[in-house]
């Protein structure tokens, strides 16, 4: 029993190695040719002219993901609180279904909606419209269900005895949530944040449609940006040779980014992060 389970877990864990090996294999041609440094030091990203600077896109990815996680985390957790502790049972059930639906709307639909509705709106406020801000907002909507549902599940499992205890101590509703529920649900909340951050970093199609895709380090939230994922999706269709290889470097850097994130999360919260 244990051994078979361990084997299953090993397969699941090995997937990441398989994908990493695949990525490295695809990037080798260009890495052997120019090395790793030009991807951060070249004057620009012009792969057809052998210039490969990915740094602005790295910033674009980081800003978009950070902005959306900062927005979506409180919104998602508050949503879950609404479901668990504020809404009447019927409304809570409906609201939960609604969030589940949001989780399954294809990114194309979000992107589509962003392109025809949100982007022109931002464009009127501050041209051109496709921007870091549009990307952050669309991403927020896309990752919010992940954090809301995981938070909801982890609130649901806080033992009722805790709540009864808090009530008998005379704690207010907010006092109970803040002082008792959140500490008890910490591990689940952190899982939600990790999952949503991963999703925010990896999202492709919607962000490609609303961010403008100009390769530059953004100076304001109204500047268009290109993320590493959009870079792959935009150019892979026509890329050949070294250009194609360089796009896989985008993927590799992204994976490195997620790895770093996971290690940092591990270091910050060692005791909550694993059972």
């Amino acid at each position, binding site marked *: 029993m244990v051994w078979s389970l361990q084997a299953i877990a090993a397969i699941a864990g090995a997937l990441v190695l398989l994908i990493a090996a695949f990525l490295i294999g695809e990037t080798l041609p260009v890495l052997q040719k120019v090395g790793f440094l030009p991807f951060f030091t070249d004057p620009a990203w012009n792969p057809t002219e052998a210039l490969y600077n990915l740094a602005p896109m790295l910033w674009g990815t980081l800003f978009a993901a950070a902005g959306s996680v900062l927005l979506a985390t409180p919104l998602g957790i508050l949503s879950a609180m609404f479901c668990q502790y504020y809404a009447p049972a019927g409304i809570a059930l409906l609201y939960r279904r609604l969030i589940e639906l949001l989780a399954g709307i294809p990114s194309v639909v979000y992107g589509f909606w962003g392109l025809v509705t949100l982007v022109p709106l931002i464009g009127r406020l501050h041209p051109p419209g496709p921007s870091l801000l549009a990307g952050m907002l669309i991403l927020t909507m896309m990752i919010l269900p992940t954090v809301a549902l995981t938070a909801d599940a982890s609130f649901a499992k806080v033992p009722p005895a805790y709540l009864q205890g808090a009530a008998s101590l005379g704690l207010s509703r907010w006092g109970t949530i803040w002082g008792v529920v959140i500490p008890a649900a910490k591990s689940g909340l952190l899982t939600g944040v990790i999952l949503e951050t991963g999703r925010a970093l990896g999202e492709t199609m919607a962000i490609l449609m609303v961010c403008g895709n100009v390769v530059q380090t953004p100076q304001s939230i109204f500047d268009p940006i290109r993320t590493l994922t959009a870079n792959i999706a935009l150019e892979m269709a026509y890329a050949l040779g070294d250009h194609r290889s360089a796009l896989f470097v985008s*993927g590799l850097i992204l994976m490195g980014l997620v790895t770093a994130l996971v290690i940092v999360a591990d270091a910050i919260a060692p005791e909550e992060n694993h059972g």
Partner: protein
Amino acid sequence: MAKPLQRSSPSRSPWLDRLSAFGVWSVALIITAIFAWIMGDILWRGAGQISWDFLTLPPQNAGRDGGIGPILVSTGLILVVCLSVSLPLGLGTAVFLSEFTAADNGFGRLVRRSLDILSGVPSIVFGLFGYTFFAQTLGLGFSILSGGLTLACMVLPILIRSAEEGFRAVPADYRLSAASLGLSRTATLWHLLLPAAVPGIVVGLVLGIGRAIAETAALIFTSGYVDRMPTSLLDSGRALSVHIFDLSMNVPGGDAPAYGSALVLVVLLILLNGAANWIGRRLSFQSGFHWR
């Protein structure tokens, strides 16, 4: 389901309590409003497209005319392949991680971290990986099988993480009492842990189905673009989300059927989520204890 806490104690900072209640309600309202905006948009533009013919006929004229019959079948098959691989693999891993490894176990940590990393791999990389590994190396070609397996890799981290949270929800007391009653580990797992973990598993399932059914980039390269009715799992079959993407990005005049397809996809999702929740509820009722 949810049980509002009693408003028992006016003594400690009632203004903070009121303020937070106001905040929570307004967040819920804002999210509902945005959701209503998007859904209204899809419903408004998509509802006119829906008919029995649209649901059953094959697409014609690059999808502008005809329907989405074969595409619905392909989407269903891809999802079945994806879940029948990822569900056992995911549950097995979750059980192993939460029940059979200590918190500081090196192997468990490694698997957990790998899965976290896997959850951040962009879908297009999954697509290119699936194309190279499943379609070429394993020789499955552009097929529903390749697509389903690629999706299985994608949803695995979500499934495992949520299920693991579910297992961890079971208080240690239960395991201790089960052990003191002389229940074997396997019996404890089947009769105690699994039923108790159902809410977490259902969340994982719902998120996983959502992610799988919404996926575009990974499927273009694996299950492919052929909009014919599939006759086997080794046939290429176009998924609904790929169809929506193609209609809205490549086909002039494809917006109307794209909205129609998006509406069908959302309705499909409501049904699938409902089914997952219904099954989950039945399983956890039978276990004899439930929290809420």
